[in-house]
């Protein structure tokens, strides 16, 4: 029984205002389970706000958010945290690992905090899969940026979330590490049916996704299936033009 009909994330007319500034202007979208979606747009287009609202890191001013069919509710931070930690995984540009914990302890932390059974064997298996089986007892500071990001990915996957949100996951990495991280994200989608939403400004990174959603001035400005870096870059360069024509 799948009450959400294979839908991992759904946004209904989500608006977000900061004071008099409208960061998101009524965005509606639906992402099927097991897809890898990139969100792109010029800076100030609202892509970070979209990610924060969709991931429960921020409350939309208006509109509704559903994760795997369950509406995100809760007025306070505690309720939101409890919603997030059972359904959503995060990968950030700056990794955000706990410096005093080892690699393995970092990966197990979300389960501990959520009061879920601490499944060490599974965490070790996940770390092996991201290629860090021999780094279990290292501290984050002893790893390269690419390795730290792979720890963060293992940590995001360990609670078996319905959606993983990645915010510029390759922004702090060199080209080679970036490629490895993107391949790893792709792989979790292809092999495990994981759903990933990635915000990026890099057309090469976006080209690893199944589809790209474009955002401009807080509104959806089109999408693209099976993106290539050139096509994405081309589209991005003309986002402004489309809008001007539309006015």
């Amino acid at each position, binding site marked *: 029984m799948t009450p959400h009909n294979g839908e991992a994330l759904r946004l209904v007319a989500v608006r977000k205002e900061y004071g008099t500034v409208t960061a998101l202007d009524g965005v509606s979208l639906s992402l099927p389970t097991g897809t890898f979606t990139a969100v792109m747009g010029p800076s100030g287009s609202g892509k970070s706000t979209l990610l*924060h609202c969709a991931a429960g*890191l*921020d409350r939309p001013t208006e509109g509704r958010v559903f994760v795997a069919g369950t509406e995100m509710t809760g007025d306070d*931070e*505690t309720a939101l*945290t*409890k919603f*997030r*930690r059972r359904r959503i995984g*995060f990968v*950030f540009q*700056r990794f*955000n*690992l*706990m*410096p*005093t*914990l080892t690699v393995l*302890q970092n990966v197990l*932390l*979300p389960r*501990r*905090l*959520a*009061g879920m059974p601490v499944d060490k064997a599974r965490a070790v298996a996940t770390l092996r899969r991201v290629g860090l089986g021999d780094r279990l007892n290292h*501290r*984050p*500071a*002893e790893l390269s940026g690419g390795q730290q990001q792979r720890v963060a990915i293992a*940590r995001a996957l360990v*609670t078996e979330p319905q959606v993983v949100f990645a915010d510029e996951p390759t922004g702090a990495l060199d080209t080679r590490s970036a490629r490895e991280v993107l391949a790893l994200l792709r792989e979790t989608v292809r092999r495990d049916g994981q759903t990933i939403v990635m915000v990026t400004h890099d057309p090469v990174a976006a080209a690893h996704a199944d589809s790209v959603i474009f955002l401009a001035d807080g509104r959806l400005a089109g999408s693209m299936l099976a993106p290539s870096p050139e096509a994405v870059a081309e589209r991005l360069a003309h986002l402004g033009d489309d809008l001007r024509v539309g006015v």
Partner: protein
Amino acid sequence: MMFGLALRSLRHRTGAFAAAFCATFLGGTLVMAFASLLDTAVADGVPATSRETLITMAGVVGGWGLIMVAFSVTSTLSLAVRQRTDEIALLKSAGATPAQIRRMIVGEAAALGLAGTLAAIIPALLGGRLLLDLLIDTGQVAPGVQYAFGPFALTTGAAVTFAGSTFAALLTARRTTRMRVTETLLEAGTRSGRTSRKRVVFGLLFLLLGADLAVVTATVMRGEGSDAMQTAGQTSIWVAVGFALLSPVLLRASARLLAVPLAVAGAAGYLARHNLSGRTQQLSGALMPIILFTGIATGTLYMQRVDDAALAAEGLRASVEQDNIKTLNFVVVGMLVLFAAIMLINTLIATTMDRRGEFARQRLTGATPRQVLTVTGLEAAVLTVVGVVFGTVAALCTIVPFTFARTGDPLPDETPAVYAGVVAVAAVLALATSLATTRRALRTPAVEAVAV
């Protein structure tokens, strides 16, 4: 160039330096207030006995104040420098030479010391006048003596706060800049750091000195009546300072011991345990004042009570000189304890605010605000327990030998209520400060705070 950078960084990092400024300011006030008693004493026309009282007061109490001030200025300053390990690593990787970074750190400290000294002049003047009034009111100084604030106050104040903070910065800077860039960056990640051997040696030396004084009190001073206070009174201070210097070592060992009870407290206990062993150096900054507070307050208060009881039992009335000592004792306790309390609040606020990024990371990993609060609450509880235990040992180094010398019994027949009160104040200060600061830090949304 580096001094310009130093001033700019002071302006932008007001939070991190507020604690250091607070310490230099309060230290300056305290030291100058007592040193002004010397200015008052050397003025013409002051009766000989009044002069002697004033000089003793300034010497004994001011001397202890000096040690406390040097201690807190050094600890808050090195805290401020250590908190910026990553910034220093960045400067190094941008091409700053160790000498340039040293100049920047020392420049900041010098500016802080100068500002602290200047700001302290007026409060010190008022405080010194208040002290003189107190001495005149209790009949220990002749009524006609005029208050003076002059060269003694100014030079001592400047020497302690300005020179002290500059020297402290030099020491810390040397330690930081000796590391290679990669090491510095690595330390920025873990920030555990090791306790320097010099610190351990000094800590042990103070403990030895305290032990020696305890033996002297119990043997040489036996049957000397209230005079035993001369050696007994200092003992808890030396021992407490010794323990305070050793606090990172003590905390690391205690954290290992307390791992078992913390394991019961779920995920928050788990994180607290790892923080206590992984961030010992930072957290031990708050342990020092708890040890000093508990040790000095408990030791001195009970010593005075034991002496009062002994005098009453002997059917003697306290002489003027004994009254003097009593006032002195209470002023010492009041001052040192006040200073330790401020140092505790200061350190806790500085270290907690510095952890905003860490709290945000915990939250993004799935910790509820309550879980984050529980972590810091547990840490504060551990700090309190460890601090109170070692503070009590320090206090006993005064109480046991003194009681023995005065009455022949090892332990005083006194109410435990005073001790309970001291412990309660320490616990409330530590817990309330750290919970309130964490709650404040949690008000920033996690996604924003994580970028700090």
